[in-house]
């Protein structure tokens, strides 16, 4: 969905277009199956861990007329676990078969998307967002937000592509104005109008 060249409603999906969309239309690779299976399994394991350490949850299981708070978690966790195992198994089978006969196995998701390096910026954003509330509590919402927004906009501006002072000055102006705009709109909307008690 990330690419701007999503095929329009008139064009058939087989026309290709953006890489992610086209990739999604292809059958899942065995390796991705394994990752998907592990993903679901991780959720299930976390869930089982919590259920297993929760004594209260079982005390009421069929104690009265109510089947109790444990029923649904057990059913859903069971379903997720089975589903995860099924996907893992099918991935494994296909992976092994793929090794036997070349040509059917796909590349790893990391390779097909340009290496792990492409995750650096998104995860960096997540990391700064994780410390942003702490900074917010220390120096206030306005300052922290201005700092965060301006910092990231400047970091993301493609400086190398810009030639000369004029263009760089313009880019800086754009960054400053958009920071003021974003911070202003957020402050107006959330603090002035709806009185959200942001620090």
């Amino acid at each position: 969905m990330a690419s701007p060249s999503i095929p329009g409603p008139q064009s058939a999906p087989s026309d290709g277009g953006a890489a992610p969309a086209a990739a999604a239309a292809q059958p899942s690779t065995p390796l991705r199956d394994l990752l998907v299976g592990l993903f679901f399994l991780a959720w299930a394991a976390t869930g089982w861990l919590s259920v297993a350490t929760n004594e209260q949850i079982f005390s009421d299981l069929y104690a009265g007329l109510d089947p109790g708070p444990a029923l649904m978690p057990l059913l859903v966790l069971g379903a997720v676990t089975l589903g995860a195992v099924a996907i893992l198994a099918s991935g494994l089978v296909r992976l092994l078969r793929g090794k036997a006969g070349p040509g059917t196995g796909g590349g790893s998701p990391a390779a097909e998307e340009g290496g792990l390096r492409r995750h650096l910026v998104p995860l960096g954003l997540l990391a700064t967002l994780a410390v942003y509330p702490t900074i917010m509590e220390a120096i206030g919402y306005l300052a922290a937000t201005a700092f965060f927004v301006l910092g990231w906009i400047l970091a993301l501006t493609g400086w190398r592509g810009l030639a000369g002072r004029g263009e760089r000055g313009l880019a800086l102006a754009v960054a400053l104005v958009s920071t003021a705009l974003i911070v202003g709109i957020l402050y107006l909307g959330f603090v002035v109008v709806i009185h959200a008690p942001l620090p």
Partner: protein
Amino acid sequence: MNRSISIPKFVRLGAAAAVLALAGTMAGATGAAAAGFPDQAITIVVNWPAGGGQDTAARLIADYVAKNTSVPVVVSNVTGAGGAAGIRHVAEAAPDGYTIGIMGSSFVARQYINPNATRLDQVEPLVFFGPDPGALEVRADTGIKTVKDYIDRLKAKPGSITNGNDAPGGSSYIVAALIESKFGVKMTKVPYQGYAPTVAGLLAGEVQSATLPVHQFVDQYKAGTVNILGVASDERHFLVPDVPTFKEQGFDFVAGDWRALFLPKGVPADRVKALEELFYKTMSDPAFVEAGRKAGFVVTPMHAKETAARIVETDEAIYPVLLEAGLVKTNKKQ
């Protein structure tokens, strides 16, 4: 290409809007100015979502308190954990008097049920808003017309009547449980999430009776589809003056919810005093009482001391019931 065209326009538009936005910010920041306490906005924290009884009461207070103070009073909903999150938010707020909470009787029950809930000794009662007496309603097609009929029916066949109420610990659950222990009967208690779903459950015929405050059923009572058997308070309810109390029918039974404002522990005494006077004065205003009546509230303001006494009273009444129902999981009394 596209970008080089769009930037100048973007800058121009943006600059204008940014100036406007900042101007708005400034105006907002310089609004509050006064010496002494209070000199900044007071927040009333409601632990239930917008639209509920607690929320309506808080917004009404916030609206009328403006008559008596120059600082803005805003309502903020901090919801979750069955009401415990909002209470905890207030208990853990800075004890400067600018954060006030509103609580109901479920606060008292919650401290025994949920180990993480705020305990009564962690907060400071401020001003009592008023009671929200419990009542007993049945579908008209059950043919039950008095409290005695109801009790007799249950005595003859325990568990034969399904009653709609809150989850364990909620105020209408407590009323139902109190009826059970007081009269030695057993009903089938069916939990609903809040009052509106309980009303819908009774109207749909899923349950035959309910233990909600009367204002939920005024219309259905007048239309004749629901019988209100009795009000669990000392006096009749002004919304349905023809419905007798339990006492009038020979059953000494008073129960129900109430609402009160409270502060975190540790607010300086002079500030507590100032807030107590401010809110007591606001709630004593006849115009406020009238506005409250319109919304179905009984408004009987009380000072901090009486409020604390009332809370202790509730505590003593419901603790045995919770203990009996196996709901006391923490803070067990010796």
